[in-house]
């Protein structure tokens, strides 16, 4: 298909004096899973409500399947939405819930029931047709809500923090399952979350938001390894921040001096800085390893065993906030204890941004 599933063109939304969304533009391709990631109040929920039609933008246009829906009411938009609380109708059983959208479209009951059975099979809820929502577990409720949204074959699937009401232990499995169901249905999806792990695990692309703006749109790898600005670098993944100086720009690469070491970084965020200007280097914990040449060193404060890896927290005067964190293989961390001094070698490449005042 040539046409995109969703397009936002410079969409702005104000609430009185507060601008909740500043000229957001975004495209979702057919079948693509795009995540809006950001802290609460960043505008991600406003954006979702604008696509759903619960709110109308003050500026900009919204297109679904190439057709402008900016002034189209919710019930004529052909969207499927899964709410944070699932919003299953408590006075209807599972089958009636799932059939609701089909019946609202005037589909005869017999035909609707066929489609409902198919949808329930897809989310593995067959046999629970007659249950009331409150008789289902949290995970089952979520899958019923997903079936209800997908059965109408929507132009876009909207997921509003659907995992936040579930136990952490359940989430991982359900994330994989939701993604498989979405892929099987081939439906373009816009997913809202404040949880970076969910976003990294599930998305084709992530739009990182804060303060009503989209900071960066990219694949999980891009957003993690090449954050576009400080906010993205700090919000997605952990990082140790070291102060350095700009040595020079060459093509797309910048040279950064940090202590005795020289690191490479993406040049784009540093354009316009003069040589020797202070910059902040963001180092991912898994890029730090014991040994030399030492990029940083410090006294071990705590060793946190995480199963597959160990997080070592160091007190480190050079790092922002006085703390550094390294993610090591358990083998390398054996013998480390609080109080011992650890030297860490850095990566050859990192992300760097103009230094933030005060130093």
């Amino acid at each position: 298909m040539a046409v995109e599933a969703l397009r936002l063109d410079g969409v702005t939304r104000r609430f009185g004096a507060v601008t909740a969304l500043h000229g957001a533009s975004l495209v979702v391709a057919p079948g693509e899973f795009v995540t809006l990631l950001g802290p609460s109040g960043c505008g991600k929920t406003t954006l979702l409500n604008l696509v759903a039609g619960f709110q109308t933008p003050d500026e900009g246009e919204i297109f679904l399947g190439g057709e402008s829906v900016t002034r189209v009411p919710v019930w004529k938009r052909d969207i499927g939405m899964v709410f944070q609380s699932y919003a299953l109708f408590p006075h209807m059983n599972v089958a009636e819930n799932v059939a609701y959208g089909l019946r609202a479209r005037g589909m005869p009951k017999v035909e609707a029931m066929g489609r409902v059975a198919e949808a329930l099979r897809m989310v593995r809820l067959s046999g629970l047709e007659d249950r009331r929502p409150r008789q289902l577990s949290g995970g089952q409720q979520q899958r019923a809500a997903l079936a209800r949204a997908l059965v109408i074959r929507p132009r876009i699937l909207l997921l509003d923090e659907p995992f936040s009401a579930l136990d952490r232990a359940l989430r991982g499995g359900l994330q994989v399952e939701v993604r498989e169901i979405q892929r099987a249905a081939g439906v373009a999806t816009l997913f809202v979350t404040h949880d970076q792990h969910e976003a990294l695990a599930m998305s084709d692309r992530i739009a990182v938001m804060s303060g009503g703006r989209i900071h960066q749109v990219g694949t999980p790898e891009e957003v993690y390894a090449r954050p576009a600005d400080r906010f993205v670098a700090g919000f997605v993944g952990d990082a140790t921040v070291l102060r350095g100086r700009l040595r020079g720009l060459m093509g797309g690469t910048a040279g950064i001096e940090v202590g005795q070491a020289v690191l490479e970084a993406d040049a784009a965020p540093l354009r316009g800085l003069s040589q020797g200007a202070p910059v902040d280097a963001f180092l991912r914990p898994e890029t730090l390893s014991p040994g030399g040449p030492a990029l940083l060193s410090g006294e071990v404060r705590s060793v946190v065993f995480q199963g597959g890896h160990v997080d070592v927290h160091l007190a480190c005067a050079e790092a922002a906030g006085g703390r550094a964190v390294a993610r090591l293989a358990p083998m390398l961390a054996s013998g480390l204890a609080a109080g011992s001094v650890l030297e860490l070698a850095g990566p050859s490449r990192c992300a760097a941004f103009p230094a933030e005042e005060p130093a």
Partner: protein
Amino acid sequence: MSWWLRLLVLLLLAFIAMPALVACIVAFDARSILNFPPQAWSMRWFERAMTYPDFRDGAWNSLLVMISASVIATLLGAGAALALEKLEFRGKRTLEALVMAPLVVPHFVVGLGFLTLFAQSGLPRGLPLLVLCHVVLVLPFVVRSVWISLKSLDGRLEDAALSLGAPPSRVLRQVTLPLLLPGLAGGWLFAAILSFTEFSASLFVSTQRTQTLPVAMYNYVREYADPSIAALSAIWIVTTMLLILAADRWLGLSRVLGTEVPGGR
């Protein structure tokens, strides 16, 4: 619980139940004068209460007024509550105040007002006047009951129905109203009970022909002092109790009235 606390609760319960109990016991007295405790037992006052024409007509009038007034008040009240909760319009605060006003205006004032109005305009003082009067008196209770249910209704359910392609009228019919049913039923029940037991306003606006049961009872005790009035009270209490038990059973009244004990049931 210590023994004196139990005793206190027991005394309190006895105090609340005492008038009703006394009336019920007196109803079985064989003598033709209200007296306590009874010396001999009889069912004759029940027969008298059931067959006395003024009581029969009064009960019939009360029933008619109760059904009409409670149904009209429930429809009007539900509409008003929906408008107050969902819409923004000029004069919203005024409507809010107006709807709640009868809570502070005594019943006899409402009755007096209607009586004056109808006497002046020469309109007939029939059952419709009583119905009108009762609607005004019970409306606030219906509005409150429905309003409270509306406030506790999860708005995301209506959003979900909209997102699934249902236009607002369909959402109202298939999601909002069914979920409001307990609130509507509670409001209707309130209205019905209040209307059936209403006395002071009815005294003003009823005539000999349209007098309700409470007014008929009042007129009766002005002339006679036999236990038939007590028998009537006993019938009344038992009927109301059965109705409320049924309502609780089938409609979850305690949930509607907000009297459910947390963690209880």
